[in-house]
């Protein structure tokens, strides 16, 4: 009657390894494995494949956004403030969102509020040009809050459906830059009448456990609503998304899969779970 279970120590070790090498992190991995061990007992699972399938379900559940909070609401004008650490992919992700929004017939406008980095304004201007959307900008070195303020007025005047504000990359540990970001967000809040505000956090999919620190700090500073997880077209699995969703309840909205404006998709929890644990 007693078939020797193939769910042995080796099995659990392999499962732990699969999750950790995908950047799920030790804490999240251990808590998932604990839950799964209980499930194996309660449901008397005997086959490794069955357990793997259940793990994928647990992961998908963790990542499913149970809120009916729309990422980018359809029937109302939206101002989207895009934030995140240096090089995460903010400017490029904005181009991708413009691509989708335009295909949905929305009237889109961009604000070049990264007034600091060399070539930043030129970079977003090229995207605006390629995608056929206006970019509000001032000269390099100007106050990002002033650009945001200008853009909101221009967007209202031109009946824009979606205004996306690009900001400079910054590390969440650099106090004065996080203060600057709070200020820009404050300006958006005060002057965003007529617009529904959304704060999008861009996280590089190759990031390790620091991704959770980023999500915590940026959310604490400017109340991020959702995440755009980039660079998943490489070999990184983006497992830090689990801790971000699990510990902070911050939903993953979009994923980036390349450098062109078409290279993104809406986040699919099941697909992500299967890619994490094939």
């Amino acid at each position, binding site marked *: 009657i007693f078939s020797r279970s193939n769910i042995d120590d080796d099995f659990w070790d392999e499962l732990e390894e699969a999750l950790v090498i995908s950047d799920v992190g030790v804490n999240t991995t251990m808590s998932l494995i604990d839950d799964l061990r209980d499930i194996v007992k309660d449901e008397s699972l005997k086959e490794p494949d069955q357990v793997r399938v259940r793990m994928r379900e647990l992961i998908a559940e963790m990542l499913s956004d149970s809120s009916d909070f729309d990422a980018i609401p359809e029937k109302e004008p939206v101002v989207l403030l895009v934030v995140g650490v240096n090089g995460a992919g903010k400017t490029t992700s904005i181009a991708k969102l413009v691509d989708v929004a335009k295909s949905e017939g929305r009237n889109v406008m961009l604000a070049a509020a990264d007034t600091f980095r060399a070539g930043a304004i030129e970079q977003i201007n090229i995207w605006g040009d390629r995608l056929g959307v206006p970019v509000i900008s001032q000269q390099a070195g100007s106050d990002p809050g002033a650009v945001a303020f200008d853009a909101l007025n221009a967007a209202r005047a031109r009946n824009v459906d979606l205004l996306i504000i690009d900001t400079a990359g910054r590390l969440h540990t650099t106090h004065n830059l996080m203060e600057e970001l709070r200020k820009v967000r404050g300006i958006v809040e005060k002057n965003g009448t007529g617009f529904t505000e959304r704060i999008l956090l861009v996280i590089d999919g190759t990031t390790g*456990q620091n991704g959770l620190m980023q999500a915590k700090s940026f959310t604490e500073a400017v109340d991020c609503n959702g995440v755009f997880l980039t660079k998943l077209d490489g070999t990184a699995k983006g497992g830090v998304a689990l801790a971000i969703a699990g510990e902070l309840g911050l939903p993953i909205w979009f994923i980036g899969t390349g450098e062109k404006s078409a290279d993104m998709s809406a986040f699919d929890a099941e697909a992500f779970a299967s890619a994490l644990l094939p």
Partner: protein
Amino acid sequence: SLSDKLGGVFGKLTNSGKLSEKDIDAALREVRLALLEADVDFKVARQFVKNVKERADGEKVYASLTPGQSVIRIVRDELAQILGGEAVEIARADKPPSVIMLVGLQGAGKTTLAAKLALWLRKQKHPVMMAACDLQRPAAVDQLNQLGKQLDLSVYSEEPSSSTPVKVAKAAYKKAADEGVHYLILDTAGRLAIDNDLMGELEEIRDATSPVETLLVLDAMTGQDAVRSGGEFNDRIGVSGMVLTKMDGDARGGAALSMRSATGVPIKFIGVGERPDQFEVYHPDRIASRILG
């Protein structure tokens, strides 16, 4: 921190000073978890702990009166062995210019580093030139040209729509040679290690300019993908050194330990900010203490 965790593991024991195999294993488990939390590669962490265990057994740590401190010391030594090493040198070519090629994943900090490196070399009285070989990212050429202008550093670039990265590299080399430039720094486009065509392009640039240094630019916050990608860059084009960027943040930097352990490539510099002067020659103990927490 790891010392606190090990203190916790050994603190529960009586003062008999006699530890069991189980106690040492509990301590080693804490070391492994600490490494994984610091983004150290899974396999590198496992091997590291094996080495620590061997030394702990060999040194009879189980008989020590302060086993926690002994384990910490062994861990620190093992880290120092992997991370430490030769002093930083930038290689010199037999005849100038010496070419330094910067490579790495998208957004790691290559273009910013080009200016930092150029500034550092000029401070040492070397005539330098940077070449804008990223023709793909929107305004990448503008970015490098602006940095050059800000610092009064010479930049060689061509119109992206009518050139190729290899052409730019060759032309820059010729101009640098004609002008007696000591160091030519090639900024390249970020790329995936698994992109066969783009890795081929890098090989072409390398073959055309024979760099004395090919520096892999690695973001300090990189997770488990570090060795997967970095190892592939090394296998395909050969990497002579690494630069760890964004070390002014709070990423633990385990990726550096992983790459160093897995490929032997030395860490030469670190980036500690966005400004061109926020650039330092690497010191092994910096990463060791970050990983230990």
